[in-house]
């Protein structure tokens, strides 16, 4: 039964993907700005413009362009960059994605940890002073201006206390041998202890900045879902059996509250993977956010389009993953 559910769910991603790809295609065509002009400049002679247009396939009618675009994607070809040596877009993405992935995972862990503990405790002490403070925290962090918060952390921990580096992902010549592109993981795999600590020290501030920023949403979501679950009969029944309060809250209630929270978390994580432009810029983090922003400035159409497709694919896969986790968590889905 589980298998049937998973197959059904996986098939459902196909139309979603198709709609996404079409929208991306359309947006890229109606966006202001001329890619050819971006490459050759506005003062180029007409024959140069013509040849570049032909080379990019932009002289074709839209429906042909659309078919070419889809068939290329089907072969896993995201195209080539329009600038800087026409590198394959996928290579460009892979240069930046591990940095974003590493930051996303650690920021996500920070936010989940903060979100779950604060949200749960706020729900337990519903309407107390403590609850009020945490609710305020939820709003405060959500409205936090990341560059300001990041700079404050840099000032305190890097400039005054000199504990952590100001920015960047790792010090020069400290990069571990590339296996996955995730510095922490690679340095563990190659047993490169100095690299590991160097990369870790660079990761701390951006992870906290980004982690705190999203933790507020988690605090609020965990709180409201926990409040609902804590009112359920089976929670009273568990208490009535003498199950200690901490076990009731963190084992019985949290697991039940987690099911609706999971969707929100999956979505947040997917958004992180798209690159947190503000955090990455503040900490000179060479990730997807900075990369995408830079290429939009250059009107590097194929790269932007390829990157957006890549991100869309990621989001769809993560929502599929979330649904698989649902089935794992909730027997009512598993046995349906």
């Amino acid at each position, binding site marked *: 039964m589980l298998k049937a559910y998973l197959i059904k769910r996986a098939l459902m991603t196909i139309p979603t993907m198709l709609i996404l790809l079409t929208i991306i295609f359309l947006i890229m065509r109606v966006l202001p700005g001329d890619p050819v002009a971006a490459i050759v400049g506005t003062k180029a002679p007409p024959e140069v413009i013509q040849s570049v247009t032909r080379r990019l396939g932009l002289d074709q009618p839209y429906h042909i362009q659309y078919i070419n675009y889809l068939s290329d994607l089907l072969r896993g070809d995201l195209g080539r960059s329009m600038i800087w040596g026409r590198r394959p877009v996928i290579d460009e993405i892979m240069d930046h994605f591990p940095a974003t992935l590493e930051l996303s995972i650690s920021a996500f862990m920070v936010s989940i940890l903060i979100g779950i503990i604060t949200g749960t405790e706020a729900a337990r002490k519903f309407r107390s002073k403590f609850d009020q403070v945490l609710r305020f925290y939820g709003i405060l962090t959500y409205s936090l201006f990341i560059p300001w918060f990041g700079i404050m952390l840099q000032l305190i921990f890097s400039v005054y206390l000199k504990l952590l580096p100001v920015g960047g992902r790792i010090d020069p010549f400290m990069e571990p041998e590339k296996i996955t592109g995730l510095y922490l993981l690679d340095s563990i795999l190659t047993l490169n202890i100095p690299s590991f600590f160097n990369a870790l020290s660079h990761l701390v501030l951006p992870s906290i900045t980004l982690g705190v920023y999203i933790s507020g949403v988690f605090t609020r979501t965990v709180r409201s879902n926990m409040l609902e679950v804590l009112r359920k*009969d*089976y929670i009273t*029944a568990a*208490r009535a059996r003498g199950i200690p309060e901490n076990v009731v809250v963190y084992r019985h209630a949290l697991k039940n509250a987690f099911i609706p929270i999971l969707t929100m978390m999956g979505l947040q994580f997917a958004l992180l993977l798209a690159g947190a432009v503000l955090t990455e810029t503040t900490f000179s983090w060479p990730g997807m956010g900075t990369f995408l922003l830079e290429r939009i400035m250059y009107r590097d159409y194929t790269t932007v389009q390829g990157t957006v497709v890549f991100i869309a694919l990621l989001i769809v896969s993560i929502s599929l993953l979330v649904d698989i986790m649902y089935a794992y968590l*909730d027997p009512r889905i598993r*046995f349906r």
Partner: protein
Amino acid sequence: MKCLLNINELKVYYFTRRGVVRAVDGVSLNISRGEVLGLVGESGSGKSTLGISLLGLVPPPGRVVGGSIIFDGIELTKLSADEFAKIRGRRISMIFQDPMTSLNPLMKIGDHLMETIMIHENIPKNEARERSIKALEEVGIPPERFNDYPHQFSGGMRQRVMIALAILLNPDLIIADEPTTALDVIVQAQIIDLLNNLRKQYNMSILLISHDIGVVSEIADKIAVMYAGHLVEMADVDVIFKDPLHPYTSALLRAVPLIESKYEKLYYIPGSPPDLVNPPKGCRFHPRCPHATDICRTREPRTVSIEDHIVKCWMYCDTYE
């Protein structure tokens, strides 16, 4: 019979925005070892609040504001959270009204039982497992359903699981709060039979809370009647049926539909239960009482006992003082 539970002048209030809801307002009663006390009353009469207060689980904004609950020599109202948790499930357990929502949907049936045993007793896992299976068998659930989830069980089966959970650690007292209300009539009879057998087997006391005096009379030794936060009458079950003293009890008995009844229409008590934020002055039943006199409207009656028969009504207070 030895007294197991002694409730004296218990007051449980809910401090809501509308005002103070006096859900249980000075109730005293005793339960002896091995005795089944049926607690009946309309919805909102405070009977469930009384039940849950015995486990110290009155939901906020409610709390016990006065009186005492002495269980086997222990003053429950003064226990710390940790001390109370040791009593819950092990010495006092509870069966809830709605079996559909009383089991954790993400936990296997067997795990509910094993967790309960292992929290109270320091025994190895396989022994806890054996005892859980035995408890399930005792309520008529085959061992192969040990690893099923609650949603794979019917309502009646789930209530059996709740009963298995309640008798698991052989408690002295079981609080059964409307254990059959959510079930159909056939299953209702089965559950009542099961409770009755288990109670004889283990010599447990049961506080059976129900709005249905018919169901209660099937296994109760004594019946207590609550109205608007007050205990209005308590006596042996035969006495209550044969010779009810309080006008509310008589009305309640007349409202039980009987198949052989000669009346065409069902009897009901006119009016509705009072608002417990602003209860009526005097006797709380007086606005609906056919025998109400002036004193009933102004002064609250004393509780008088005529042998083992307790009643709170001016008709039985000899002098109007």
